[in-house]
């Protein structure tokens, strides 16, 4: 026994020695001014240059934490796949970094005054990656299969408002059954693909600035610049995505020179990196991380209990303890990137007040607190860490929470789809740049309302918001919905998580989008 303890101590000592090389202090993000002595930095810079022969070849290698699912745009569902294939596929319109929807394969979009028809003029000279020109047949094929194709799994529900498609020369007219503020965003996700091409699965072909070269399952995916791209061409000749599931593997890959850029890092991963070799850029993940409560389950069916949790949880403490201070506190189901809809005043609606929380619990009949379970998807470390901090914060008001980690498949089935849970920590996103997705899901009869939030006033405002064609009115109604969620403490809203990106020095042009995408076309080595 003694020997085992000794052995363990030695292992621990080794472990600490192994970590000793990294600075313990938290570095200043993004700015990263070099405080190291000049000769020191000169040495590491030359080392960095030696570590990346890719700069000379004008290529980079990017580390990603999960493999791609299907490469066929009809079937790709993983956010990580869409994030990368954003560079390969385009719709008639596409997103811009500041959240606007801008023309892509269409050169011009005209919306009729009543909002019931859209005219898309095809851009001249757009080519597919296989060299074929984009023709109206391809466009009709691409839109139709996402609208009412025989494969329901491939349909985009937001395209169901389409009444009819009609083509005249190079002008496509789409008429709608009712006005929809989300229609263009849906068109953005209906990628334009060649109509007679059947090998999207193994060798995808689109119109984007980069084209597919090769893929090795669970290993890598290679893209190269598409020379015939209609718009601003990419700067890099070749981009390799390396798949490394382990967090340590990604950091080691950066340190060893195998990787030049890794997004979605945690703050404790970034502190392991040499500041002379890497810049850390900070964006936001554009998601609403919260302790989501099952409003139909006891005791969360009582608004006072939910409010008590809101008063008890110090969002800033969660951000400080689990995220080293990176993150934007939120008070409702909306994040700052949607500046038009975002109501900042709701963030401080509940400020930490343990007395108020205890009083509310007592009033609801739980003077001594209660026991609860937080079910978390175990593959999302940030959510697991958040749950762990929440357990400690809730203990202050006598609520004994336990964290139950489950694997992703189980989480999707039990929590998200069967709604058999008490509470969970996760992040909800909007994948098509519309605020609607973040709010519509709390309507009492909506299919993906996994929190079972049910509020008559909310349903009423939601119906009004979705039916109006007037943008200003809709914005106002969305804000009312946000306030409703906060006042009724639908969930314990926490934060919009920070997106930390490590970028090798010498590489520039990283652009953040209000979407989960990584645009490689703007990246390049500084000349």
């Amino acid at each position, binding site marked *: 026994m003694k020997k*085992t303890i000794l052995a363990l101590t030695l292992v621990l000592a080794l472990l600490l020695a192994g970590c000793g090389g990294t600075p313990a202090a938290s570095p200043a993000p993004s700015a990263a001014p070099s405080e190291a002595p000049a000769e020191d930095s000169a040495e590491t810079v030359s080392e960095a240059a030696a570590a990346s022969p890719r700069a000379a070849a004008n290529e980079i290698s990017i580390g990603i934490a999960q493999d791609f*699912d299907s490469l066929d745009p009809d*079937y790709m569902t993983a956010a990580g796949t869409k994030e990368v294939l954003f560079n390969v596929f385009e719709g008639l319109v596409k997103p811009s970094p500041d959240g606007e929807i801008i023309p892509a394969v269409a050169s011009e979009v005209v919306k009729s005054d009543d909002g019931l028809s859209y005219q898309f003029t095809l851009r001249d000279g757009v080519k597919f990656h296989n060299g074929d020109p984009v023709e109206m047949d391809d466009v009709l094929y691409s839109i139709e299969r996402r609208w009412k194709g025989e494969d329901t799994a491939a349909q985009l529900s937001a395209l169901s408002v389409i009444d009819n498609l009609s083509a005249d020369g190079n002008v496509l007219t789409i008429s709608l059954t009712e006005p929809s503020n989300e229609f263009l965003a849906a068109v953005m996700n209906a990628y334009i693909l060649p109509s007679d091409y059947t090998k999207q699965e193994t060798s995808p072909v689109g119109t984007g600035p980069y084209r597919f070269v090769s893929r090795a399952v*669970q290993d890598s995916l290679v893209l190269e610049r598409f020379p015939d791209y209609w718009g601003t061409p990419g700067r890099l000749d070749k981009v390799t995505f390396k798949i490394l599931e382990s967090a340590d*593997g990604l950091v*080691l890959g950066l340190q060893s020179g195998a990787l030049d850029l890794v997004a979605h890092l945690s703050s404790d991963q970034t502190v392991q990196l040499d500041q002379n070799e890497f810049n850390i850029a900070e964006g936001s993940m554009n998601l609403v991380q919260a302790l989501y409560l099952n409003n139909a389950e006891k005791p969360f069916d009582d608004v006072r209990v939910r409010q008590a949790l809101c008063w008890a949880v110090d969002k800033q403490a969660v951000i400080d303890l689990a995220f080293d201070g990176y993150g934007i506190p939120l008070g409702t189901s909306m994040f700052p990137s949607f500046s038009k809809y975002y109501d900042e005043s709701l963030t401080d609606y509940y400020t930490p007040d343990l007395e108020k929380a205890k009083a509310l619990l007592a009033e609801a009949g739980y003077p001594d607190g209660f026991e609860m379970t937080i079910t978390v998807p175990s593959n999302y470390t940030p959510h697991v860490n958040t749950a762990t901090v929440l357990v400690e914060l809730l203990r202050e008001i006598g609520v004994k929470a336990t964290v139950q980690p489950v694997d*992703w498949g*189980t989480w999707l089935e039990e929590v998200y789809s069967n709604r058999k849970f008490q509470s969970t920590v996760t992040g909800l996103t909007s994948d098509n740049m519309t605020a609607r997705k973040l709010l519509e899901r709390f309507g009492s009869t909506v*299919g993906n309302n996994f929190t079972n939030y049910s509020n008559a006033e909310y349903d009423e405002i939601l119906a009004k918001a979705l039916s109006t064609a007037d943008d200003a009115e809709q914005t106002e109604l969305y804000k009312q919905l946000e306030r409703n969620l906060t006042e009724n403490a639908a969930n314990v809203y926490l934060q919009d998580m920070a997106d930390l990106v490590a970028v090798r020095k010498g590489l520039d042009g990283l652009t953040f989008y209000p979407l989960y995408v990584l645009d490689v076309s703007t990246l390049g080595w500084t000349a």
Partner: protein
Amino acid sequence: MTTALRYSLRRVFLLLITMLLVSLLTYLAFELVSGDPARTMLGTEATEDQVQALRHEMGLDRPFAERYIRWLGGFFSGDLGVSYSYRQPVWGLISGKLELTLWLSLMSFVLIALISIPMGLISYRFTGWFAGWPRTVLNQLCMALPPFFTGILVSWCFGIALRVFTPGDFPGLRNDFPGALRHLFFGAVCLSIPRIAMTVRMMRATVISEMNMAYVRTAISRGNDRAAVLTRHVLKNSLVSVVTFLGQTLAELVGAGIVVEQVLGIPGLGRFLVTSISHRDYPVVSAIVVILAFWVVLAGTAADLISQSIDPRLRLGSGKAGIRGAA
């Protein structure tokens, strides 16, 4: 001749039964565990209709027995099915990874055998307090070293400080064979350290008990050199249990490689198995699990055959010991 034939038939039969049982258990496990492949594939944004349509397309709405028998039929006709998440034939996805994992396992196995057998023989000499405790500490330390930790340590020392290989940039067997082997070698080192320690410990215990046997005392008292007795008699007698142990090790190595594959970025079978389980990619998981079962039975058979060639008493058909040999 007939004994050999009967032996091989029995082995093949055992192999088939094992694989059949393993595949059935895998299928059953997925049946019992929650999580639906269709929903996992479609993610959080899918509607119920879409999930049901995909379930139908993948045949998941069929009864369990039908699905299993269909899969089994495919398996015996050489068709491992199509992966749910990749929508590609399973064999094409795993064949390259199988090759890598075999290389990794065999390299670790060779390391283990080459290092631990001589060390086990020598280490029986290090007894007593003075020589004993450093040996015990070293042994315990090596056994306690989890491969993920050695993986990080090795990557850091040889990858980042010395730049012998590049962690996170596995070259691939086809592109750069020596480079790939070098990368795999470091994985093999991480994998073998705890197992070398275990084998040495086991070997040492066997050697010590053999050395106390009457025949050794007799041999030494008749004027034989101690070292000669050790290599000529004791080694041979100790080897049987070591070979059995190494057989188990060979079987375990494939599974143990998962963590090392993740840390060193080796696109092997273990890593693929883990991700496929969380994606509920049944066809891939079943195929890998059956291949692993095959591997385990194969390693056991190999260990058996080697033991028998070392110790004729274990051979089939030669009295009671034969039963032990077949087990």
